[in-house]
């Protein structure tokens, strides 16, 4: 029972990370109509910037904002130099250009940091684990991730639903040309929004740093899961991204945790483990197929 709760919390923790990435991706797509494959690179950049600063200064409190700001800044530069030229293009051009960006960022990271993964210590004040209830202990750092993720989700909701900027964002998603006609500097809005999405990706990277190894290719691994989240939740919908992220996070974690022992009861030998590993890796994709069979536009489509 305690194992079940622990794994469920792990699932939620993966879910909030995926949400941070999916929210940026889906906002950028919903409002600017751009599919950005290099979103995973921003996650990687956030993680690397954090890891580098943390190893130089020894302080997580300096490193975390550094990672966020680096991801945000590079995101805005990316928007200014490349993405801006792609708004009017079809998705194919966007995919290929941002694919080129991934090649560039990945290889540049190899050039700067090498292929060896970087490791970052969990900051001292978040070390250890606490007793939640009964006999369930859970690491403080992971609780912190869940808390930060949920707070960011609430903040994002308030930003979009309650502020002037959010109003412009919603208006831009509904009718881009009308917003422009009403005298809003839509280019500035887009750059700012892209920066916001990049910072969300960077935040996920920063938080992942101490629990995963920071290495080249980490961005694409998570990017593809993020796509699954966005497809399940409905493209362009932040609420859908949250629901999709939670579902994918929990299902993926649960399958990886419990499928092997289920298989071991059904069959014997190492085949069971291998098969279970295969099926648990495929689980979320099958889930996506299932959702699409019932609702081709995802659980919570943004428009209609």
């Amino acid at each position, binding site marked *: 029972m305690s194992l079940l709760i622990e794994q469920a919390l792990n699932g939620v923790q993966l879910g909030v990370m995926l949400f941070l990435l999916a929210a940026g991706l889906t906002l950028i*797509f919903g409002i600017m109509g751009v*599919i950005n494959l290099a979103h995973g690179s921003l996650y990687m950049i956030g993680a690397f910037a954090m890891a580098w600063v943390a190893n130089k200064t020894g302080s997580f409190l300096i490193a975390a904002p550094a990672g966020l700001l680096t991801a945000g800044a590079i995101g805005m530069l990316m928007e200014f130099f*490349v993405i801006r*030229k*792609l708004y009017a*293009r079809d*998705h*194919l*051009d966007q*995919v*290929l*250009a941002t*694919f*080129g*960006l*991934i*090649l*560039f*960022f*990945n*290889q*540049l990271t*190899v*050039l700067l940091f090498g292929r060896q993964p970087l490791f970052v210590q969990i900051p001292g004040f978040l070390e250890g684990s606490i007793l939640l209830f009964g006999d369930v202990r859970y690491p403080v750092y992971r609780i912190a991730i869940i808390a930060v993720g949920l707070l960011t989700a609430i903040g994002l909701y308030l930003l979009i639903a309650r502020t002037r900027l959010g109003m412009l964002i919603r208006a831009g998603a509904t009718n881009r040309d009308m917003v422009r006609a009403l005298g809003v500097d839509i280019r500035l809005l887009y750059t700012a929004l892209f920066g916001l999405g990049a910072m969300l990706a960077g935040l996920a990277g920063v938080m992942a740093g101490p629990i995963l190894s920071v290495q080249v290719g980490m961005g*694409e691994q998570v990017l*593809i899961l993020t*796509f*699954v989240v*966005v*497809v399940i939740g409905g*493209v362009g919908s932040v609420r859908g991204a949250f629901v999709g992220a939670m579902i994918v996070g929990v299902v993926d974690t649960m399958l990886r945790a419990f499928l092997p022992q289920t298989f071991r009861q059904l069959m014997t030998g*190492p*085949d069971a483990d*291998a*098969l279970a*590993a*295969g099926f648990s*890796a*495929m689980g979320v*994709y*099958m889930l*996506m*197929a299932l959702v*699409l*069979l019932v609702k*081709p*536009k*995802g659980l919570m489509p943004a428009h209609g």
Partner: protein
Amino acid sequence: MADLKTTRGPASASRTYAVIAIVLAMLAALPFIADAIGQPALTSLATRITILAIGAASLNLALGYCGLVSFGHAAWYGVGAYVVGIMYRHYVTGDPLLGLSIGSDQLLVTLPLAILISGLFALVLGALSLRTSGVQFIMITLAFAQMLFFFFVALKAYGGDDGLIVRRRNALPFIDTRDGPTYYWVCLFFAVAWFALMSRIVTSRFGRVLEGIRQSERRMAAIGVSTYPYKLACFVISGMGAGLAGALMANHARFVSPDMMHWTQSGEFMIMVILGGAGTLFGAAAGAAVLIGLETQLAAWTEHWQVILGPLLVLMIIFTRGGLSGLVRLLRGGRNE
């Protein structure tokens, strides 16, 4: 781009055939030329390009002609390769799979099976993916390809991460496939056959419908064409071509691994199609030659060639809309439409 393919007079048609014949003769003579200039490695490079051109041409059918932006093309390519790898493994060990003895090292057996099984995979996953369109379709094809990638990584019985070694190339009756130039000619033969099939398909009624779907699916639906079966058939044919390419590549490299279906491979196929000009028959071959040539050249220059290739790609997309032909137009000082 595709608008350039207007109907031509018989005179220009015979000129086209003449050009094709000359190019083919040059391609067939390539191993001799490579030996003559003391670069025998060129034959192996040309074999790779020929094989990848088959894969790119089949993606072009879906992407260029029908407008299906599939980001999972490498999955079918990898499945085709694994069919060869798995059958060879069973041929060597003699073990049956599920009671069937499926081992074989005959190219005439493995190749059709690879095409068939890739087509089956494309049929099942395509039937699901085609329920979506636009950006969802891009994401879902990528995700399904990644699903197969993880499946083969986890498939420890067939090497998992490490892949499978095919110690000897599949055999053909009367032909020694182990000889480099001979295998190149075998691949060239299959490439010619595949391109001929593609050319028949795109000029057929079926091909016209695909073209119509690309231009406006709604219009095709309005004139009474049920588009879904056409798109699915196109997707399956495209997957079969990738399976053929994968099976040939497994024999060429004598190695199969999940990396063949990595998503970057799908990206490379797309780049080949776009480089050569989507929706032009031979563009895919030109795109494959240029991309692989460029990669080989840059890789000889620096280990970090992707730092150069990435920005090149971005510039190409931003400034030339029609791939290489767009570049030529740009250099001539013309305007892109």
